Each structure stands twice: as structure tokens, then as C-alpha cells.
């Protein structure tokens, strides 16, 4: 006679049932039953506590070591990117420090030159001529009234440019290009501006506004939008002449057609910085070349 044991209806699910119901190690229940049956009083500080301490020590070391390991093992690309960003920041800080030194030395040299020139009469005349020339060429900072023209990409154009770069490789119409800035600057010069600066970079006879990819460069220095073009002159005349000029017409066309944001403001007190010191290798004055 075979003895049949009644099977539970969900006997085939014993794996999942066991998983959920027996999540606690059955050893604990067995040990508790054994303790209840034994007649020995429980020891306070014995082999069990030492074992437990060692076990917890191992747990602590394991957790800490793997946390340190995970922290050290950031994905390789993330590490490379982080180190590149750090290098970029360090180099930029070093370049800025050197630029500050250049500016300081330049002003010291100018002050010393001024001091030595004012010692004689001819020197003073030369100094006056030098001041005027520096103002015109952009080698000295200037202050005055004038106009501020802000040009910015159309809203949403940046995102579209990122998408277009992958499909067509061309810039969308809403992005400001170097030709736009060239038109604005030419229009301001034609309207009677005496000094022009773009995003803090003074324009001189040697300045070029060109583009490399999507970035606009002034004197090989990249600019970020919004582009702020500051011109010193008579605000009324500048505004009226610029609006009537070719540059002003161009600006209003691209603003209405492509959504480029344009803002023209008059200003009573503008100060433009000096241009970076430049050197002429081939051009010389008539006296020098003779």
C-alpha cells in the first residue's frame, strides 16, 4: 500500500513560494529551538560574541572596500572627460593670469613712456600726438556716448543647429553668422562711429571678424552669443544713420525673416577697452623705410 501525501494545489510554484516565504535563514529558527531545549544558561561573553565581532568586521571591510572600489572605477570616459575639464580650467586660469600680467606691464610701460616724454617740449608734442593716434587706432581705452547693438540667435536656433549639424551640416538661418556682425560693424563705422568693440574686444585696423564652424571669432578669439557691439559717437546721429544705412537695413531684414533678436540702445557713458597690443612686421613709416 503506498502512502500518498496530499499535495498542495500550488505545489508547482514551490520555488517562488519558497523564495518569498523563506526569506529568513531557517538556521536561526533551528538554533533558537536548540537553545530552548538545552539546559545550559546562555553565556554572556563567549565564543559566539567573538565570532560575531569578527563577522561584522568582515562585513564592514567588505562594504567599505567595494564602496571605495566603485568610487574609483568611474567609467573610463567619465574619468577622461573629468581630467580634460580640469586641464581646461587650469590652462584657462594660467592664460588669464598671463593676460593680466601683460596688461599690467603694458600700462607700466605706457606710464613710463609718458613720464619720459613730458620731460622735454618736443617730447610733450610727441606725447600729445601719440595719445590722439592711440585713440584712433584702438591702442588706448576710450569713454564717450554712443550706441549699444545687441544681436542674439533666434530662440530655439541653438537646438536646431545641434540637430542640423548631424543631418545637413549647415547652420540654420536663426544662428547669427560672421557676415551679420560684419554688416553691423560696417554700418556703424559708416554712420560715424569713432570706436567700436564687439563683446569687449576693441576693433582696430587689423581686426577681422570671421567664423570657424559655428563660432564667430574676432581677432582669432571666439565669442559666445549674445553679441554686444558697442560704438562710440553721437547717439542721435549713430541711431538715425545706422537705421538708414545698408547695415541697418540688413539687420532689420534678418530680424524679421529669421527671427534673430536685435536690440539697439543709446548709452550716455560707454567705456571701451584698449585693443590687445599688436605688432607690425612689414609695414613701416616713411622715415624708417628711407
Amino acid at each position: 500500500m503506498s502512502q500518498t501525501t496530499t499535495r498542495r494545489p500550488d505545489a508547482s510554484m514551490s520555488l517562488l513560494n519558497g523564495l518569498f516565504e523563506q526569506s529568513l535563514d531557517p538556521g536561526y529558527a533551528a538554533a533558537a529551538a536548540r537553545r530552548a531545549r538545552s539546559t545550559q544558561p546562555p553565556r554572556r561573553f563567549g565564543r559566539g560574541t567573538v565570532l560575531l565581532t569578527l563577522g561584522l568586521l568582515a562585513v564592514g571591510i567588505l562594504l567599505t572596500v567595494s564602496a571605495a572600489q566603485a568610487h574609483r572605477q568611474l567609467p573610463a570616459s567619465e574619468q577622461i572627460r573629468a581630467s580634460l575639464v580640469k586641464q581646461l580650467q587650469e590652462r584657462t586660469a594660467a592664460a588669464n593670469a598671463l593676460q593680466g600680467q601683460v596688461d599690467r606691464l603694458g600700462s607700466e610701460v605706457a606710464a613710463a613712456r609718458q613720464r619720459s616724454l613730458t620731460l622735454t617740449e618736443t617730447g610733450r608734442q610727441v606725447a600729445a600726438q601719440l595719445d590722439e593716434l592711440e585713440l584712433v587706432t584702438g591702442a588706448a581705452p576710450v569713454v564717450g556716448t554712443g550706441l549699444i547693438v545687441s544681436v542674439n540667435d533666434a530662440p530655439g536656433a541653438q537646438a536646431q543647429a545641434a540637430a542640423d549639424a548631424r543631418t545637413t551640416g549647415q547652420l540654420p538661418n536663426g544662428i547669427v553668422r560672421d557676415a551679420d556682425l560684419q554688416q553691423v560693424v560696417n554700418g556703424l563705422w559708416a554712420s560715424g562711429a569713432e570706436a567700436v568693440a564687439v563683446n569687449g574686444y576693441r576693433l582696430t585696423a587689423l581686426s577681422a571678424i570671421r567664423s570657424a564652424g559655428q563660432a564667430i571669432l574676432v581677432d582669432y578669439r571666439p565669442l559666445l552669443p549674445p553679441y554686444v557691439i558697442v560704438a562710440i559717437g553721437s547717439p542721435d546721429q549713430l541711431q538715425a544713420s545706422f537705421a538708414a544705412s545698408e547695415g541697418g537695413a540688413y539687420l532689420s531684414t534678418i530680424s524679421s525673416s529669421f527671427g534673430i533678436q536685435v536690440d539697439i540702445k543709446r548709452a550716455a557713458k560707454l567705456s571701451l577697452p584698449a585693443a590687445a597690443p599688436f605688432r607690425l612686421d612689414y609695414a613701416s613709416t616713411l622715415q624708417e623705410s628711407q
Partner: protein
Amino acid sequence: MIAAVGLVLGIIAGIFLEPTVPAALQPYLPIAVVAALDAVFGGLRALLDGIFDDKVFVVSFVANVIVAALIVYLGDQLGVGTQLSTGVVVVLGIRIFSNAAAIRRLLFRA
């Protein structure tokens, strides 16, 4: 609790000694951690249930870690490493959640 001092000592030792894990064992470290967590939660639940036993805790911890690492190693050799490690993580995760729910019930009676 003297045993808790052991845990703190272990954490401090891990921070200051900074033992470097041999490269061969590094892939098995995460699974060992999950197995260790399962043993710790089981121990906590037993403690709150009043049936805690030191030997069972240490044995369950060591056995869990070794067995989990062995299963994943076997899976790597057979070519089903990721699937087996997923299975191990699923099972250990279910156990951890079960024990955590029981602990919550015992602690907060909620």
C-alpha cells in the same frame, strides 16, 4: 554592543588601510556586497524576532558571499555570466526586500 564595535572597526579599517582588491576578484565585488547585505538583513530580522544566533549569522554571511561569487564565476566560465548574476541579484533582492518588510513590521508595528 561589543559586536557593533567590530562593524565600526571594519569600516574604519576599510577606509584607512585601503586594501586594493586583486583585479581577478574585482568583478565579483558587487555581487559579494549584495550577498552580504542579504545576510545582514536576515540577521537584523532574526535579532528583532528574538532568535538571533551568532554562529548562524557568520556562517550565513560567509556562505552567501562565497556561493554568490561562485555562481557568478561559474556563469562567466560557461558564458552566461550576466544572466546568472542577474538571477542571483534578483533572488537576493527579493530576500532583502522580504526581510526589510518584516523588520519594518517588527520595528514600527506597521
